[in-house]
């Protein structure tokens, strides 16, 4: 298939693996930030092809994984209401809150719908004026423009029965939080290509400078990732720490300026809680005063309750690259994709689920 097979060519992959082997002289730890990259790495068995000295750790870039428990509980409360049609991307439905999940709410009679775009939720709002339509606006900078556009359209069309439950988080503050942690072991980053397609690459140069760490903006196909790793280890071996763009077929330095303009109009930067990591300053988005009327938390008067995560779960350490899924005592035992304890086991992009599905260690 065009635009896919070229990036999964086994011969080209072999050449990149060879080039990486010839470049590496010592052990390097590289973090791929985005969950989509984690998914591709495990789905295509990329780690197995790499020399042992190149260690990939899986970053916090899975929106399903980092959405805090308290926010999931808010979604569950809203979705259970009789007057609400609750709309969400598909894989949020299995994420456990502190008591239940959206699939169970649906089984108990809640109107919970899977959508591919928040703009469909705006249409549902127009078609159902006697219902409250709520879209669960999760994700990074990648999903934000469509969510911003949905709110903008709802305001333009004066749809007073539409709102979004905002749980948007940002990549650069998460990278900074990882780099500034005293026990950080990440030496190079594969930055999330699609985030940069929207936001551009400008935010990363100060990070590369301040923390002396190479950052390679990388795509999602196997060859993208192998080339990204190659560019990263070359910088590491050369002692350089620059921002490079592997994914130049999709990413321009300035990003998508129209999307950015809309984002600035609809969202403002706020501190956000990350599941498993905790609060990170200036790491998320909330609606600006102009669009506050579309904030589901305000509309449904939800208190800002905090909830404790299950004690056995180490997903926070996994998200920061400090532990591997198999290091967790619950991994594959109490915690499986059917009964996830932590968010990283829930999403197909989560490191634990990806390991369980594709790389499960043989039972001892």
């Amino acid at each position, binding site marked *: *298939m065009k635009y*896919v097979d070229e990036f*999964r*060519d*086994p011969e080209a*992959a*072999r050449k990149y693996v060879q080039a990486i082997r010839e470049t590496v002289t010592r052990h390097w730890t590289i973090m791929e930030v985005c*969950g*989509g990259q984690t*998914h591709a790495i*495990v*789905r*295509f*068995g*990329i780690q*197995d*092809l790499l020399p042992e000295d190149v260690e990939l750790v899986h970053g916090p870039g899975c*929106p*399903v994984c980092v959405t805090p428990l308290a926010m999931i509980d808010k979604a569950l409360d809203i979705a259970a209401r009789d007057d609400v049609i609750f709309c969400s*991307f*598909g*894989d*949020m*439905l*299995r994420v456990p809150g502190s008591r239940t999940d959206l*699939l169970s709410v649906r089984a108990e009679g809640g109107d919970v719908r*899977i959508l*591919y775009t928040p703009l469909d939720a705006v249409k549902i709002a127009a078609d159902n004026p006697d219902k409250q339509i709520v879209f669960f606006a*999760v*994700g*990074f900078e*990648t*999903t934000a423009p469509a969510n911003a556009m949905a709110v903008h359209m709802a305001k333009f069309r004066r749809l007073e029965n539409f709102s979004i439950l905002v749980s948007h988080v940002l990549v650069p503050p998460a990278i900074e939080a990882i780099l500034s942690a005293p026990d950080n072991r990440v030496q190079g980053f594969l930055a999330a290509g*699609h985030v940069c397609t929207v936001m551009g690459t400008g935010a990363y140069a100060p990070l590369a400078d301040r923390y002396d760490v190479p950052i390679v903006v990388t795509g999602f196909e*196997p*060859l993208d990732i192998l080339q990204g790793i190659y560019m990263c280890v070359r910088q590491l071996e050369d002692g350089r720490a620059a921002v490079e763009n592997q994914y130049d077929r999709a990413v321009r330095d300035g990003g998508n300026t129209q999307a950015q303009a809309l984002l600035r109009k609809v969202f403002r930067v706020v501190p956000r809680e990350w599941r498993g990591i905790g609060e990170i300053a200036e790491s998320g988005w909330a609606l600006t005063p102009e669009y506050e009327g579309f904030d589901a938390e305000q509309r449904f008067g939800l208190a800002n309750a905090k909830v404790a995560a299950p004690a056995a779960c180490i997903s926070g350490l996994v998200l920061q690259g400090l532990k591997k899924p198999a290091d967790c005592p619950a991994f594959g035992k109490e915690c499986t*994709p*059917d009964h996830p304890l932590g968010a990283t086991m829930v*999403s*197909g*992009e989560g490191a634990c689920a990806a390991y*369980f*599905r*594709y*790389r*499960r260690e*043989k039972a001892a």
Partner: protein
Amino acid sequence: MKEAGAIEPTCPLPLNEHPRIRLAHGGGGRLMQQLIEEVFIAAFDNPVLRGGHDGAVLELLHGRSVMTTDSYVVRPLFFPGGDIGALAVNGTVNDLAMCGAKPLFLTASFILEEGLETETLWRVVRSMRVAADAAGVSIVTGDTKVVERGHGDGIYINTAGVGRIEHEVLVAPERITTGDAILVSGDIGRHGLAVLGEREGLAFVTSIESDCAPLWDAVHAMLSGGTDIHCMRDATRGGLCAVLNELAKGSSLQFDVVERDIPVSEGVRGACEVLGLDALQVACEGRFVAIVAKKDEERALDILKTRNETASVIGRVTDGEGGLVTIQTPIGGQRILDMPTGELLPRIC
């Protein structure tokens, strides 16, 4: 027996009188009688059904017979390449075929929702007759219930089937052995995406047609061609991935498959890429996995290819870890192919 093509294209019930199903159509009285005679008997017409008993009296020869049942629930009722009626016939016919049995008779039970357009019911029933003729089975008895509006999705159908085993080959997971070839009878994932595309109104998948089809003909050709089939299973819910895992567990052997050899059409691949789905987990309704003795691999493939040129040998049974399925990725890596969790939930980005 009427030829399928001779069935009235429009519903023979006096539509002006009853354009929609009422509760009374399941109530045991005159309306139900009219529905049975003018819709079900008119469409399924055969001597056993015309006998008019509470049950079907069948002539079964001595030997091994197979019985199976399945219920069919699908929204929307009509989708590219099929409908709930074709599904209800082919699904049960295929379960018989996977046991190595020639499908002979089906029952058909309908749970109709009050308010269903009678014309819709007629289209479904007509499609069942066409599918039954194609599969060589007769629908010999049935039942109808009507539930109140809002308590059903239009039509639910249950079919049970009886088939006869006419050969000596034992087809069962315990016959799977190290070295066996793993074949798939055609490209996978069409049915699930055709239904999803129609239900969600996804314009870019509308070119994908369901693979809904009877499988007995291909199975029969392999058996009568002397192929030593060790086991078969049709890939329905959970797709190819679920079948491989079930059979690996059932045989306590390891299955190693090669992703590049698994046939997936361009349309299905593209839609899966866009939607964040894994084609290996998407449902089929007319594809099966055959585990055949190594010596018969070529012969089995040749026969399957005469029915569907995309049929392929996708891997081999090994004596590694019992119940494990591994897949070689397109770039040469290897990973475990685990049992799907059950819901196909598209990934966010």
